[in-house]
């Protein structure tokens, strides 16, 4: 604390003080009948000039631009030349009664003189013959003060009245009389009589401060002349003996006994104090108009100056321009609390209009303040967080009041209590204990989190309850800058707590939010891994126009510039929903609010658009639904929910409720204070009458059912649409799963409702409507019911159309898959579906593969030496077969012989594949692996001619048609045979162990392949299936595989072959009934020719044909 400059000025007794307008001089008067004129620049040793004309004690001094006045108990008011002791004359002679107070109006033209008479005189300084007498008091008048605009004069009488005089009219009138604030003191010699009871106008002219008889400083609003707030602090007690306001209105100084207290008018908090001279009573206080200095005189005759009274981290008490003091701007409108009345904000203009013609000065004052306000609003706006409607930030163009920043569901301090946050997780409630606050955090789900409370010396004014922790923020104060406290749930040992300080002076926190994944477990369980999921994310909006992102452990992650005025925000699990005002409000009443949804993960902006708030209305609440969608509530009573918010730039606002249409609201005056939204209900507190926010005790949360405010009164239709909205939101939240039980059951429920609607439509013979509704049905099964309905109503046409719809629905892709694909496309723009598949394939195979579809070259085949002999010329590689990703399938095949035959590296094949196969083959069987390469060359040619009959080979190899057919009829027979044949052969490693002599069996296997499910399921078949679906090539390849196997009949491994064939035939297996075989047989004859090419398999034509047809079928299906 800076040192006091003290001088002994007068004898003990009542003293008075005034500073000259420019702050260069001070005039003090005392009971020693002299006035001393101090130069403010001089130190304590300076000997001041004196004016000693008065005969009795000096009771009042006043200063104007060009003169100063003194009033004394000898009833004379003397006028002196500025800054000197040169007397220029008497302004007034009060005919024997003591002068008590002098007040020169801000323009310096008039002086109000109060004395021990009941009348107040207002004397024009330029012409002291013009005197107005103000009659109203019924006791001596102790003090007089002027409104900053000179239009009002306030006088405080010993009768306990404060009278406000309207001075702008020719004949002053009483504007109002305020009683009951200041004490009535009749005895002019008592100590209390000298105490300051003047109404100290704030520079904005909207209210004045006065020391009340309860020893408090109270604020009286000009709009309705009622007491709106008080200044109190535990350190301040006793009578207020003097009161003064800084020239810019930011600070108020008061004196109790010998102590000087400095208050911030915005926060109404004590920011500094000085003990003064012990034992003395301070009688007059004054702020210097040019520097940070407070001067006072006390009852011991001392004149004290306290330079640097305002702590460094607070704005200067003198400067009032934004330009000169950007960082520490001056809030023009002290506290939102000062303006309890909504009317205040809206009547400013009206007031100005009222006074405009009467008093130009008023406007000037006000305008100054508007300029200051802009800065002040930015800085101080968070103060008004709770009051959404009645505390507007003033704008340069004050046509539409801009809504100040607010925390969702918070309230201002009312009866020493306020809510910082109220959502579906819990409540943060603050109780003001004068010296400190008690913060009480309560959770609704007590099984998950335990409530707690703590003593708060920082006076947190913002709070947010997140899923993972609670965050608080406090404004800058004398002892500390603005800071943020995060308290994660879980261990209550304060281990996880951290504080984040905004070091820059003048910075403040406008809003806070904390997000995180919903915890599935209780935070009360003391598990070691309780913090495995982290503490979520914290976002802070600061007055430095940014959003600061921190991790749950207090790691700073990013300071994101926000090129807009922050208004409010709410945090979800993965993102934060921020409402801001990009520009200013518009002239036609729109708040011009927009929103952004910003991901925590990568700070990308998911959605950005305008908020649907009607003109002339403000945002009242923002939050999240239980599905996680952003939701807003505005003063028009509408609830909007953001749909499709997960998909970047697809979001839109759906109006889901209009509280004005509520059944319960009819005939009642009530409003709703939302705290959360579930799927079907608005959770809110119901406020009666014109309440703006809930008081204490908190009312119970009410659930109001939400209905889309459709204009047609069709509750059923509304229900369906509402459900569809929720279902689509639920579907959007899915990732890879197609649906969930919950969704399915909801869909069923909606379908039931739809059925009712269809029925109604049928009844009304409204076929188009019925069709339209039927198209909305979710479950294909329901169509059956709808058709029955149509039949019942004898609407044949409708029934037919419904059948078509049903067939269509059955044919087309599953809508759920379509929806999932849509999601994938939207959320992962880069990889189209096909690529995903390919990737998975290649990874499955362990080798990177060229585009299978693009590879139209013939397949590389490695012929077994033995097989080659027999089949080499005959083997046909069709286009299809060549395209087929044989390598993919075959490598998996346990039967190396087949693989080798089909896949053996050929020149045409991708090197990687060939290599791989080879190695495999090598691993399996060295001796065989080597021979194939030479044969490959021969094979490709051989195959091509036989494109059409690629499969036939396999069959041809079969000696017996009849035999094969039999086998195909019975899967088990076949398996048995295969096993018998194969015996140990089944082992992939010995494919060639079996001599080609088993051709017949091989044939048998093949036929069975088509007909049978895989006897030995191996990983391969499944994969092949997938591949088959996607690419025809695969199948073709399998055909080739078959051929190969046919050619390789020598190997004759039943088991292997069956597997292979399975792979190809899975799709067809159903169709492979004996009947189908029989049907196929006759056709086969024509194709026999091709088959006959194969010398080995001369007689198996029928079977081969049959197989072929099957294959074709499969292919067409796949295609």
């Amino acid at each position, binding site marked *: 604390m800076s040192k006091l400059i003290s001088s002994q000025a007068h004898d003990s007794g009542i003293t008075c003080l005034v500073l000259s307008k420019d702050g260069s001089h001070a005039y003090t008067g005392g009971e020693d009948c002299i006035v001393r004129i101090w130069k403010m620049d001089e130190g304590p040793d300076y000997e001041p000039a004196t004016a000693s004309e008065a005969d009795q004690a000096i009771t009042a001094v006043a200063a104007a631009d060009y003169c100063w006045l003194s009033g004394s108990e000898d009833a004379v008011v003397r006028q002196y030349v500025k800054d000197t002791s040169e007397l220029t004359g008497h302004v007034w002679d009060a005919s024997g009664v003591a002068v008590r107070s002098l007040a020169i109006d801000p323009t310096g033209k008039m002086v109000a003189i109060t004395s021990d008479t009941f009348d107040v005189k207002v004397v024009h300084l330029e012409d002291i013959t013009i005197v107005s007498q103000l009659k109203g008091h019924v006791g001596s008048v102790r003090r007089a003060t002027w409104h900053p605009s000179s239009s009002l004069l306030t006088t405080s009488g010993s009768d306990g009245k404060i009278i406000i005089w309207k001075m702008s009219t020719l004949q002053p009138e009483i504007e109002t009389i305020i009683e009951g604030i200041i004490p009535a003191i009749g005895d002019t010699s008592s100590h209390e009589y000298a105490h300051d009871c003047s109404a100290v106008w704030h520079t904005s002219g909207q209210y004045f401060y006065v020391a009340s008889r309860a020893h408090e400083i109270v604020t009286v609003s000009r709009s309705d002349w009622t007491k709106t707030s008080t200044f109190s602090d535990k350190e301040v007690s006793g009578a207020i003996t003097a009161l003064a306001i800084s020239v810019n209105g930011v600070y108020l100084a008061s004196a109790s006994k010998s102590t000087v207290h400095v208050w911030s008018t915005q926060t109404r908090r004590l920011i500094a104090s000085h003990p003064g001279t012990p034992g003395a009573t301070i009688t007059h206080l004054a702020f210097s108009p040019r520097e940070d200095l407070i001067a006072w005189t006390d009852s011991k005759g001392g004149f004290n100056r306290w330079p640097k009274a305002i702590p460094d981290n607070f704005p200067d008490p003198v400067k009032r321009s934004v330009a000169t003091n950007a960082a520490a701007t001056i809030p023009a409108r002290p506290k939102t609390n000062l303006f309890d009345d909504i009317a205040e904000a809206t009547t400013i203009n009206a007031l100005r209009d009222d006074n405009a013609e009467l008093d130009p000065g008023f406007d000037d004052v006000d305008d100054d303040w508007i300029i200051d306000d802009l800065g002040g609003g930015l800085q101080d706006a968070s103060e008004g967080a709770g009051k959404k409607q009645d505390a507007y930030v003033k704008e340069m163009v004050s046509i539409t009041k801009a809504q100040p920043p607010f925390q969702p569901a918070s309230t201002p301090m009312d009866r020493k209590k306020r809510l910082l946050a109220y959502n579906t997780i819990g409540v943060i409630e603050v109780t003001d204990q004068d010296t400190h606050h008690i913060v009480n955090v309560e959770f*609704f789900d007590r099984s998950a989190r335990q409530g707690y409370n703590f003593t708060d010396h920082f006076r947190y004014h913002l709070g947010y309850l997140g899923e993972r922790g609670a965050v608080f923020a406090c404004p800058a104060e004398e002892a500390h800058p603005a800071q943020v406290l995060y308290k994660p749930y879980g261990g209550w040992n304060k281990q996880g707590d951290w504080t984040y300080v905004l070091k820059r002076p003048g910075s403040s926190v406008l809003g806070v939010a904390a997000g995180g994944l919903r915890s599935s477990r209780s935070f009360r369980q003391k598990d070691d891994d309780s913090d495995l999921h982290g503490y979520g994310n914290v976002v802070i909006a600061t007055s430095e126009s940014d959003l600061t992102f921190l991790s749950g452990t207090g790691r700073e992650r990013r300071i994101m510039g926000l090129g807009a005025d922050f208004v409010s925000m709410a945090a979800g699990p993965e993102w934060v929903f921020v409402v801001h005002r990009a520009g200013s409000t518009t002239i036609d009443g729109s708040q011009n609010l927009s929103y952004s949804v910003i991901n925590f993960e990568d700070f990308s902006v998911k959605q950005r658009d305008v908020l649907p708030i009607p003109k002339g209305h403000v945002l009242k609440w923002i939050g999240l639904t239980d599905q996680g969608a952003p939701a807003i509530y505005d003063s028009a009573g509408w609830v909007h929910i953001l749909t499709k918010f997960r998909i970047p730039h697809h979001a839109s606002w759906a109006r889901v409720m209009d509280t004005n249409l509520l059944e319960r609201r009819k005939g009642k005056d009530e409003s709703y204070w939302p705290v959360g939204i579930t799927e079907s209900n608005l959770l809110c507190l119901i406020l009666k009458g014109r309440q703006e926010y809930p008081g204490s005790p908190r009312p119970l949360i009410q659930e109001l059912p939400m209905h889309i405010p459709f204009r047609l009164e069709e509750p059923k239709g509304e229900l369906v649409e509402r459900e569809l909205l929720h279902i689509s939101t639920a579907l959007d939240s899915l990732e890879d799963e197609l649906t969930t039980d919950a969704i399915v059951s909801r869909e069923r429920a909606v379908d039931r409702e739809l059925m009712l609607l269809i029925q109604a439509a049928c009844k009304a013979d409204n076929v188009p409507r019925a069709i339209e509704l039927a198209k909305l049905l979710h479950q294909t099964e329901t169509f059956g019911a709808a058709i029955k309905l149509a039949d019942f109503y004898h609407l044949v046409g409708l029934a037919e159309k419904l059948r078509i719809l049903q067939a269509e629905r059955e044919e087309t892709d599953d809508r759920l898959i379509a929806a999932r694909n849509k999601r994938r496309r939207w959320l992962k723009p880069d990889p189209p579906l096909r690529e995903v598949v390919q990737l998975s394939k290649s990874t499955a195979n362990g080798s990177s593969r060229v585009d299978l579809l693009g590879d139209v070259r013939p397949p590389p085949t490695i012929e077994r030496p033995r097989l080659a002999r027999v089949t080499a010329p005959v083997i046909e590689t069709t286009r299809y077969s060549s395209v087929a990703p044989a390598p993919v399938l075959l490598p998996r095949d346990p039967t190396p012989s087949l693989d080798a035959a089909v896949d053996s590296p050929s020149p045409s094949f991708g090197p990687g594949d060939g290599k791989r196969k080879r190695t495999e083959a090598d691993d399996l069987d060295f001796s065989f692996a080597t021979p194939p390469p030479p044969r490959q060359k021969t094979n490709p040619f051989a195959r091509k001619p036989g494109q059409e009959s690629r499969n036939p080979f396999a069959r041809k190899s079969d000696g017996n048609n009849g035999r094969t057919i039999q086998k195909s009829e019975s899967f088990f027979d076949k398996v048995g045979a295969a096993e018998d044949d194969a015996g140990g052969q089944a082992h992939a490693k010995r494919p060639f162990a079996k001599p080609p002599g088993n051709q017949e069996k091989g044939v048998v296997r093949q036929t069975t392949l088509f007909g049978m499910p895989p006897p030995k399921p191996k990983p391969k078949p499944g994969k092949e299936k997938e591949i088959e679906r996607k690419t025809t090539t695969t199948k073709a390849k399998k055909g080739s595989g078959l051929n190969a196997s046919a050619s390789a009949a020598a190997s004759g491994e039943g088991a292997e072959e069956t597997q292979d064939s399975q792979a190809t035939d899975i799709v067809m297996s159903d169709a492979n009934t004996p009947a189908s075989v029989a049907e196929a047989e006759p056709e086969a004859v024509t194709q026999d020719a091709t088959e006959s090419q194969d010398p080995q398999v001369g007689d198996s034509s029928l079977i081969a044909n049959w197989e072929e047809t099957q294959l074709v079928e499969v292919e067409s299906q796949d295609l």
Partner: protein
Amino acid sequence: MALPESLRMSITPPELELISSQQLLEIVPLISMERTAFISGAYGPLRPPNKAIVPIWMAVNLKSKKKCHIVAPAWLNVDFLQDRLNYETSKPGFSDLPFRFMEISKVLLDVASDDLEDPDKLRSLLKDLREARQAKSRDGLKRLDHSELSLPNLSSMEINEIRPFFVQSMHMLTQLVREPSAA
């Protein structure tokens, strides 16, 4: 059971209370719980601060563990009961009250008086109601008939109360009436 003769013939009030505790009631849970199957049905899920509908026995159980707030039924408030009491004292018939209002109100007042508004006033109103209705049912004795008795809006507890005596009396009346006709 060592019950007085009159009671042995009918259900005891605690039994009635038990029966009535199957009725459903709204609560504001303070714990979360998945939908859980009980013998009487599946209830839940409990998701604070959303209201849930559970049977009274469950609400009472949760309440006694301080795990929920009970939302008073629409009829259990001073205004409603006062209205009914006025009806009761001014009109001859029984007023329209829930069939098991006595049991339910007793349970709620015992267990969750802190969740009710003005429980003392409620108690006295209920007591007044009971007395007024008791007087009427006593009055109804005059109109006792051998064949039928119509007392609309009589609550379960009251029926139970008058049953032993009324049944017996009616039985007697039947006999009395039948004799002459038989003769």
